[in-house]
């Protein structure tokens, strides 16, 4: 199982705040996981294809090719605007 989270405009676009999914066989890094989610439909394909999105794994920002393992918490979000 991995915990997936989506924030702010991305959460609204996808209509999902968080979900738990079983990591399919062969999905072992972020590009593969993102690609697998993008297969859901065009909304997901477009939204997760935004090059400005940030990704955090286990609550720390990671690089686009980061490995993903069972038990991870993976979050996608737009550039932050706090402060």
């Amino acid at each position, binding site marked *: 199982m991995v915990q997936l989270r989506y924030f702010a405009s991305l959460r609204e676009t996808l209509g999902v705040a968080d979900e738990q999914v079983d990591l399919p066989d062969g999905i072992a890094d972020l590009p593969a996981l993102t690609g697998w989610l993008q297969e859901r439909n065009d909304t997901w394909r477009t939204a997760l294809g935004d090059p400005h999105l940030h990704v955090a794994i286990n609550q720390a920002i990671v690089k686009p090719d980061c490995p993903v393992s069972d038990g991870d918490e993976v979050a996608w979000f737009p550039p932050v*605007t706090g402060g």
Partner: protein
Amino acid sequence: MICVQTDDFDPGAELEQLHSDNSGTAGAVVSFTGLVRDLNEGNAIRQMTLEHYPGMTEKALAVIEQEACERWSLTATLIIHRIGPLAPGDRIVFVAAASAHRKEAFRACEFMIDTLKTDAPFWKKETTDSEARWVSAPPAAG
């Protein structure tokens, strides 16, 4: 110290605390208060809602505070950030650094708010008379 909270805070009480924590050793306290502005890109703002990533937010703020304490000689630091619905004029964020010397307090306070604005997972959604829209991030610094 780090606080992520819905409630408002009292800058005077927070400054007082920073002083008294270090009575006599701190010579300089610099604070930044961020407020909800009533205008953005020409539109009057009625409400501002702050979303964040619970858990990661606190970690990100702790990293920022720790880095400031490693880079400058500080006697106390504080980051408070509000979440939830806010109105124009409301306080959003309070960042303060105390040091023996003012230059270090200025540099540390500015570093913390600058880094918070790029690294801490908060998102602003503003409501005008006609729409609710997510605030877009400024272009990344070169």
